[in-house]
């Protein structure tokens, strides 16, 4: 079943300067997609449009074959059933870890608690359940942020540069663990990154965006055969950002 379909999506902030142009993609249930590209290429905007945090200026977004955003309708973010993980983690500083993870879960208190604890165990941070976010390390905060986003069992999990601020060894470890958890839970996910390694080690599918246009798409394996010309160009942009 198609979990997400994007048709001819365009977006601009200033008329005549498109951030995204005619972007189309499909994502099957349980698949992990990485969106790659240099800073400012429009990948985060695409993620925000899928989340409903921004309204596209053209095209449409469908989830499970239902239109959630086009020229005529917009389903509000809170009704889209998506989870979001951001680079800054954005944990609620006034809530304990367990309360952060329970925040979006619906049900009785014991059910919500059980769901949250299960995820915290999955991400190996259950011992910090009653600590506050500022009392744990950034790697642990990132695990909690992913756990919190997964807790309400969203149809799609959106991750914007999820490992952007972590050191390399921690990033490698988290990539492996997160992919396993996402796959075990059959969570359809989109990861936005400027890091090729994130894309290659975590995803089933990869698209590469440059200047708001999809310049390559395919399986992670296919992307490793990215044309030399594009690869060099992208690397040089990466090095400058």
């Amino acid at each position, binding site marked *: 079943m198609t979990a997400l379909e994007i048709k001819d999506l365009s977006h601009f902030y200033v008329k005549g300067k498109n951030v995204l142009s005619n972007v189309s993609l499909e994502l099957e249930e349980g698949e992990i997609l990485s969106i790659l590209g240099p800073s400012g290429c429009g990948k985060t905007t695409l993620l925000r449009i899928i*989340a*409903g945090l921004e309204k596209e200026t053209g095209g449409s977004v469908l989830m499970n074959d239902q239109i959630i955003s086009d020229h005529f309708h917009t389903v509000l*973010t*809170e009704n889209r059933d*998506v989870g*979001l993980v951001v680079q800054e983690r954005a944990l609620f500083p*006034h809530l304990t870890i367990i309360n952060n993870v329970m925040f*979006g879960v619906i049900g009785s208190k014991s059910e919500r608690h059980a769901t949250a604890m299960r995820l915290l165990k999955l991400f190996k941070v259950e011992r910090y359940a009653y600590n506050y976010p500022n009392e744990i390390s950034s790697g642990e905060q990132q695990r909690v942020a992913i756990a919190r986003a997964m807790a309400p069992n969203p149809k799609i999990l959106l991750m914007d540069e999820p490992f952007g601020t972590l050191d390399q060894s921690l990033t490698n470890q988290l990539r492996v663990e997160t992919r396993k958890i996402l796959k075990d839970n059959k969570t359809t996910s989109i990861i936005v990154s400027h890091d090729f390694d994130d894309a290659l080690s975590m995803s089933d599918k990869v698209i590469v965006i440059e200047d708001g246009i999809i310049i390559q798409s395919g399986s992670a394996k296919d992307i490793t055969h990215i044309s030399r010309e594009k690869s060099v160009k992208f690397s040089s942009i990466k090095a400058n950002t």
Partner: protein
Amino acid sequence: MRLSFWEITPVALFIVFIAPVAIVLVSLTGDYSDNWTHLYQYVLTRYIANTVYLVTGVSILVTIVGVGTAWLITNYNFTGKNIFEWALILPLAVPPYILAYTFTGLFDTYGNANNLIRDLFDLGREFTFFPKVRNVPGAIIVFSFTLYPYVYLVSRMAFINQSRTMLEAGRTLGLNKFQTFYKLGIPMIRPAIIGGLMLVIMETISDFGAVDHFAISTFTTGVFRTWYGMYDIETAKQLASLLLIFAVTLILLERYSRKNASYSNAMSLYKPLYLTKLKGIPNILAFAICLTPIFIGFLLPILELSYWALNYKLDFFNDKFITTAWNTFYLALMAAFFCSLLAVIINFSIRYKSNNYLKVMSSFLTVGYAVPGLILAIGVMQMLTYFDQSFISEISNFVLTGSVIGLVLAYVIKSYALASSTIESGYQRINSRVDDVAKTLKTSGWSLLAQVHMPLLKTSFLTSMLLVVSEVIKELPATLILRPFNFDTLAVYTYIYAAEERMYDAAAPSIAIVMVGLIPIIILTRMIRTSRPASRD
């Protein structure tokens, strides 16, 4: 298109906030009575001349005192510097009218200061040592030494943020220390000084208590006399409109003067200033320069008020004082709560809806701070009278007019800018990605505000309430006009006793006002301490 609560509320509030000001201004298009002709022919020139004289004198003196002390504190180490750093803000707790009362108590012909000199040197009763203070120069001193902290605060913050490299560049180009101060230090912080000066001018032109006590004819006393002496509200409004136009012109001039100014040191790498240690005469001079404004603006009135209160053998602590204090505090708390709540709702609306129209509209909501309390009170009273006559008159006469509703409304409009800037800075500390994540967790609108923002804004909300409370407690002209019959606040209590020259009775409420006024000063001091520090000696 269906508008939500978050879009309707700012618009509704905009109408309520602007209406009183508009009501006053509309009077200019009406008929002009004989009283206006009388005012125009005989007293208007005096009102203008006195107001301009007062504003000019105060502006010069506060700039010298405020900028001079800020430069000393930021660049030098001298005896008492760590105390002066925060103590220089203390006079802000003393409203000008209270310093005016203590000044007359001290320096009038038979005031305590003159009596002391006569006793010390065994001089006759006709001998007067101190010059008369009930005049414009006396008022200039009163306003300057209570209001200079506005200039001190902004100059100090601006000096702290000045990078050492720029001043060092000046020194290498041949400037001595004093030249560095007035050729580089001051010009670089000019926008900050003008900003602080604007606050001082606004406070000066909107004051009623001090100029009334000194019997100086200014616009505010003129409006009062026209209304309560000639019973001519229309002419009073027309006179108030001129004052309002003057205030708005000043604001526009200030905005215009800042328009193209770019004084930030963003281009240069910030390096904190080195403090120079002063010894000998420079050390004594710096000590004296910083002590003088604190002495005149804070210690002197506190000593005089304490002397009066002790002479009264603490008899002031009676039922009337307690009732008045209670009236003041519940009114202030009510206004502070509503003001802070509205500031939260409006700032949340702007953030939640990301709408530029809301942003522009909300900037108009802060206009009340620049409108003298007197004008606001006239506008609010007229607005409530209109509502009473149009909608409520069939049930009862004057339900809203002369009720605490009018007072609270005027306080909220007047203090909204304070509350809004506090809440806004609280919001700046909450990452907008928190909102994005909360929305994906099915939290929006009220639940986002209640469950996520309010717990994070708790400190800002309390700070905003404290600032508004201290502002409301000091407010005199609006309270005098809008208070319900037989309803006194501490400021009114002080004013009435001072007007009757019953200074001993005025002492206790004055001390209470000063004590409450100290609260925001403590908050400010903490903020300054946590700001960017200067470096080692």
